[in-house]
């Protein structure tokens, strides 16, 4: 398996601010890679380094086998980028911008362009400044999705899209993956990342804190268990990896580290299980845990 993006130890400072502080990121060819992090974590800075717009202070970055700074122009013909805050020329129509950006990238699939305009319900005749935020986002998405490229770099592409358009976007991303394209998806919307992404990297304060498949990451989190037992629960509290135990008669609720799940269930079955619900960890919990850690750090 080849890698489309490989970043290690990336550092970028702006004056005294250390925006990237040894960031690592590996995106395999053909996967949809979720790029998660709180505001100001360095997602957009990383992307701008990958696009050769910013020059890293140290660390290495390889994009589609090339150097994003030195080979910028050649690499850009093989990728499409949707910025987080799309800014259109006020007096150009949306259709003109789509064509311009597509042509500058080296060509546009006209059938696909027409198809995307219809699916995103976008009027290409309106002038740049008359579009709402969501519609500006659609202009950039159509321009990116209609180009014939190997890699899509999407920086929070769905901010401003309504739920209907969000689902159109998800369909489009799946189609792109099925056609063998690699996608780096920076996002805040966890549900979107959960449904679309094969692997995820979570960054915080310019550093990668977690990376792996969703299954890998779930291992690091806790499962919520709620059970009704035949008798009072015994010894649950003393098990390692069990947290926040609440006992009400024969009922018990607790969270357990996913790797200790087996031991916890064995302890429960000793008391005789009448009913059991278990909630798998969501990415949201994973995410919040890192957020909270960060707040703890900043305090």
């Amino acid at each position, binding site marked *: 398996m080849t890698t489309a993006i490989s970043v290690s130890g990336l550092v970028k400072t702006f004056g005294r601010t250390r925006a990237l502080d040894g960031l690592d990121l590996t995106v395999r060819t053909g996967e949809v890679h979720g790029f998660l992090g709180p505001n100001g974590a360095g997602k957009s800075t990383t992307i*701008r380094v990958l*696009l*050769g*717009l*910013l*020059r890293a202070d140290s660390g290495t970055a390889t994009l589609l086998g090339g150097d994003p700074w030195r080979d*910028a*122009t*050649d690499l*850009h*013909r093989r990728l499409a*980028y949707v*910025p987080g*805050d*799309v*800014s259109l*020329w*006020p*007096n*150009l*129509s*949306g*259709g*003109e*911008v*789509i*064509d*311009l*950006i597509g*042509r*500058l*990238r*080296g060509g546009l699939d006209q059938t696909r362009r027409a198809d995307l305009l219809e699916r995103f319900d976008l*009027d*290409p*005749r*309106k*002038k740049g*400044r*008359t579009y709402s935020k969501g519609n500006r986002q659609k202009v*950039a998405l159509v321009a990116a999705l209609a180009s014939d490229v190997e890699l899509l770099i999407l920086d929070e592409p769905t901010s401003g899209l309504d739920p209907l358009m969000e689902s159109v976007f998800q369909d489009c991303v799946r189609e792109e993956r099925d056609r063998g394209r690699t996608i780096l998806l920076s996002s805040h919307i966890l549900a979107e990342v959960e449904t679309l992404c094969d692997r995820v990297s979570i960054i915080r304060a310019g550093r990668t804190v977690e990376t792996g498949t969703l299954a890998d990451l779930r291992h690091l989190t806790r499962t919520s268990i709620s059970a009704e037992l035949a008798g009072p629960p015994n010894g649950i509290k003393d098990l390692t990896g069990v947290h926040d135990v609440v006992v009400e008669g024969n009922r018990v609720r607790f969270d357990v580290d996913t790797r200790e799940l087996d031991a916890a269930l064995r302890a429960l079955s000793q008391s005789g299980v009448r009913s059991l619900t278990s909630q798998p960890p969501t990415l949201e919990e994973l995410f919040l845990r890192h957020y909270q850690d960060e707040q703890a750090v900043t305090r």
Partner: protein
Amino acid sequence: MTGVVGTWQLARLARRRDRVMLPIWIVLLSVIPGSTAKTYESLYPTVAARASLNAGTGSNPSVAVLYGPAYDLTTPGGWIAWRYGALEALFIALFVVFTVTRHTRAEEDSGRLELLGSTVVGRYASLTASVVVAAASSFVIGLVMALVMVGAGLPVAGSFTLGLTVAGTGLVFTAIAGVTAQLTEYSRSANGFGTAILGVAFLLRAFGDSTPSANWVSWLSPLAWPQASKPFVADRLWVFALEVGVAVAVGAIAYRLVPRRDIGAGMFATKLGPPTAPRSLSSAFGIAWRLQRGSLVGWAVGFVVMGVLFGSMANGVSGLVGDSDQVKQMLERMGGANGLIDAYLAAIVGLFGMLGGVYAVQAALRMRSEETASHAESVLATGVSRVRWAASHLVFALLGPAVLLAAAGLATGLGHGLRAGDLGHHLTHTLGAAMVQLPAVWVIAGLAALVYGLWPPLTVAGSWTVAGITVLLSLYGPVIGLTQAVLDVSPFTHVPKLQAGTVFTATPLIWLTAIAVVATAAGLVSFRRRDIG
């Protein structure tokens, strides 16, 4: 009254945002006329000199094109009213048009007004606040101007007639800008409409003042009204009342338009654009051309109109100076009447060179505004290299002035040649004189590119400082007696004058071009190496 709630706060905000530009405009416009009373007395010390100036210039229609009619050049007051009346009207009008647009339509265009509009601010507050600021500034200019002239020993009645009627022109254009700000969504278009009306007013005045059989046409132009009040000659103060009346009537239209439109929208709805891009919009140069062409065409039209106007005045300049001894000496040093015309043409062409420098800076600055608006990022994330992107804009900063100077040179030669005869000779002569300015303009463009590459946040301030110092040194340096070493800082000092009796030498042009090339190349190299955004 709820419609104007918040006016005071907005006016204070406007004053705060303009705290540098506003005083500069006010001081420049109000001090200049009165401070030149002494110049008149030293240039035309005797009654005879004044009489001959009056006879020569008062009856010269080609001079009236630029300066307006001369009613009495035998007194310093009458001379000042002629020399500055029309110019003051023109500049105060420019000042209020930009000020009103900046605080009304530009605020809406940028979306800032929406932020303010959601607070306790009335529907009419933004318009009222900018009208208050522009009108108050006009009054201050008029009153200070009058006081400076009284201080210089000029008659009180004439001083106030001139000051108030100039302020009155400011009021009329404040109202006009109030209307144009309502019409379209873009502040660029609002400024464009305002300056277009100003241009028409200028042409009407120039035509009326220089055509004895159709003097009445001048009355259609608010720019002619200060001189129509005949300050220091007849002191028709009722002209000021006319100006106030017109301003109120036009202003009422602006206020009637406000409730008929939404915030952010114009009276003219934005038209839909084409669903696909034309072939021309396929490259970095294509988008640069699209962004720069309007400005280039506008400047070219302006240069042609000015060239024809100034050119047609050339033949009459010998009458302009009268026959005072001092002036005669000056004239002889320049080589007689033909030398005087040559010197005049050289001065005009030099003016075009400096304006070309202003255009070059403006064209180069488009790179910076494209970058700060994140438009550059969209283009640079495609297969366009940084050098290609920057070069697409620099083409306009470097070749745009060539187009403008050629147009101005030909238009000046045409205007002069049609009056003086020998059209072919004058065309080539003024074209050549205009084109030799180009290397000096390139130096300014090259320095703008250098600042942009090296210190992007300083691009705007740095480039305008370069252009400003250059223009000030060339215009005022010799007058205030700066040493040659200081004057040499301006590239225009080194441009050879194509006059009879001087030997043309290309060496300085080669040097200037070399400096421009080095600066531009250094700017491009730095731009390749720095961060974008």
